[in-house]
């Protein structure tokens, strides 16, 4: 496995300290076009490390609250969604949702416009300036912002997404639940050579072009490996594993499960958006005490 760097805590503490040096300065504007009778949508601008101005979509349910909240961390794609494609819009009637574009994504692509593929290896041989150091800070800033909302029930705060969900919840207290699908930063140096599929193929491309940087890349990736963050995470976690036999299946993720401090449920993908998605929706609802999840599912899942 990638060795946990000796200065792992220092690296991230410096990142968080630097982030703390920039006030978020939130700017919140209602977006009437995407608002309904059951939820109001806002565009949110926030400052992160750099300084860098980010953008997110905040949806608040109609009513007095407090409400459970879902924080959709920055995805590995250029597009920022209000809620993930295929999610029933009615999810916004029961949860506060906040989706953030990290630096480089649409709506947060000035001055830095990320390429996909390309983002994963941007400065990957320099741990200090690796692009994901900033993106992790962005994601933490998003959670910090969400936690300031008075409509939020602090006992029901879900952080949902890829690796960034686990990393964010490990670095920033306040998440009660995590749904994470490891994609980018689990044993990457070892697993990338075993696939030709993007995004990990980006690492292969990079090392084919710059073979002399292999150790530097390995050093950087070690700061981001989920196993290094796991002991810091106490939130109840749903770990979305790949289907049996795939690169990131449940057995492969075993060391991560062992390292996590909180209660963990491992779900092995059934290679079906419907089955996998339904499981997540039901899990989140159960954790949040929502007993009629049926009513906020997509029509074809009811």
């Amino acid at each position: 496995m990638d060795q946990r760097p000796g200065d792992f805590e220092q690296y991230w503490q410096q990142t968080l300290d630097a982030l703390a040096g920039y006030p978020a300065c939130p700017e919140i504007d209602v977006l009437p076009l995407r608002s309904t009778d059951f939820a109001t949508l806002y565009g949110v601008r926030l400052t992160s490390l750099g300084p860098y101005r980010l953008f997110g979509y905040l949806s608040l349910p109609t009513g007095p609250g407090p409400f459970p909240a879902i924080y959709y961390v920055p995805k590995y794609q250029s597009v920022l969604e209000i809620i993930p494609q295929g999610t029933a819009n009615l999810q916004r009637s029961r949860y506060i949702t906040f989706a953030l574009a990290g630096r480089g994504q649409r709506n947060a692509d000035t001055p830095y416009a990320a390429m996909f593929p390309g983002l994963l290896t941007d400065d990957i041989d320099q741990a200090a300036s690796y692009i994901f150091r900033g993106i992790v800070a962005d994601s933490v800033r998003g959670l910090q912002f969400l936690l300031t909302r008075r409509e939020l029930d602090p006992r029901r705060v879900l952080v949902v997404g890829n690796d960034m969900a686990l990393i964010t919840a490990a670095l920033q207290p306040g998440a009660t639940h995590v749904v994470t699908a490891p994609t980018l930063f689990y044993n990457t140096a070892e697993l990338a050579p075993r696939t030709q599929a993007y995004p990990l193929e980006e690492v292969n491309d990079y090392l084919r072009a710059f073979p002399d940087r292999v150790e530097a890349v390995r050093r950087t990736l070690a700061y981001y490996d989920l196993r290094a963050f796991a002991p810091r995470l106490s939130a109840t976690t749903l770990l979305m594993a790949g289907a049996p036999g795939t690169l990131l299946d449940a057995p492969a993720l075993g060391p991560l499960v062992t390292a996590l401090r909180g209660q963990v449920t491992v779900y092995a993908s059934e290679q079906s958006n419907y089955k996998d998605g339904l499981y997540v929706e039901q899990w989140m609802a159960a954790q949040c005490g929502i007993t009629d999840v049926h009513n906020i599912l997509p029509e074809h899942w009811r």
Partner: protein
Amino acid sequence: MPKAVAVDYQSMVKKPADFDAFWDGVLQQAAAVPLEPEMTPDPLRTSEDVEVFQVFYTSLEHVRIAAWYCRPTRRAERIPAVLLLPGYQADPPIPKEWALKGYGALSVAPRGKLRSNRQFNPGYPNLLTYNIMDRHTYTYRGFYVDSWRGIDFLLARPEVDPTRLGVTGSSQGGGLTITTAAMRSEIRAAAAGAPYLCGFMDAMALTHTYPYEEINDFLRAHPDRRRAVEETVAYFDGINFADKITCPIIVNIGLQDNVCPPETGYALFNRIRATDKQLYTYDGHGHDAGRYKHNAIVDRFFAQHLLSER
């Protein structure tokens, strides 16, 4: 268990009387725009087995369109080629895996997508409803032509056998596969997954998920514009292109698709004119449309129609 899907679902879409005239006019405009293809090797993405190129070409309104082109390093003098079309919010992938199977592969980023958004960038969400009141300026007028012109790029490649061209994609890529197969007679085989942009007005009633929800948002804000919206999208509805498809085609849908309702997949399939057509339905699957199982079927389908020389 979710309720059963009506296999005989009747779409509400009506084909405008001047549908063909509209698209003839668009194609005439497009024909006046030179392709100006530009193909630059990408050494970072190139491997021992696959050559990767960054591609640009010009489309309607002189918008420069980006794409990735991959071809096998070791190849015959002439190879078959596949046009790959992207999902609504997906970043077009580098199609190395197609080159590894022996195809030239062009993965297009139609206008508004990353790398093709310098001159046209309505954003997401918004692309689906941008200028939806006017068929002459609606997003998908140019977006469709951008996709179709990918075929012109492939035809200009000396290593591509012009008699062995295919097209495929899923979701929006599935919808674009339908329109491309309909409008480009050079296509010899098409595989469309979970086709989007088919039954626009049906879908926004059958489901309330993005991206179709963009139209619901628009009409909630502007209820008086419903008729105009219906009129516009009828010119772009894949179901209205389906009777032009004559090449062999396969379509796969998930019966629990929460993005592109399966009802619209049935309605589309029933309108496809080709006699060599096959619908694969995947119960227990959503917008993935059974991709995990279906990929092997797609591989066999294209191998049968494109890999063997004629």
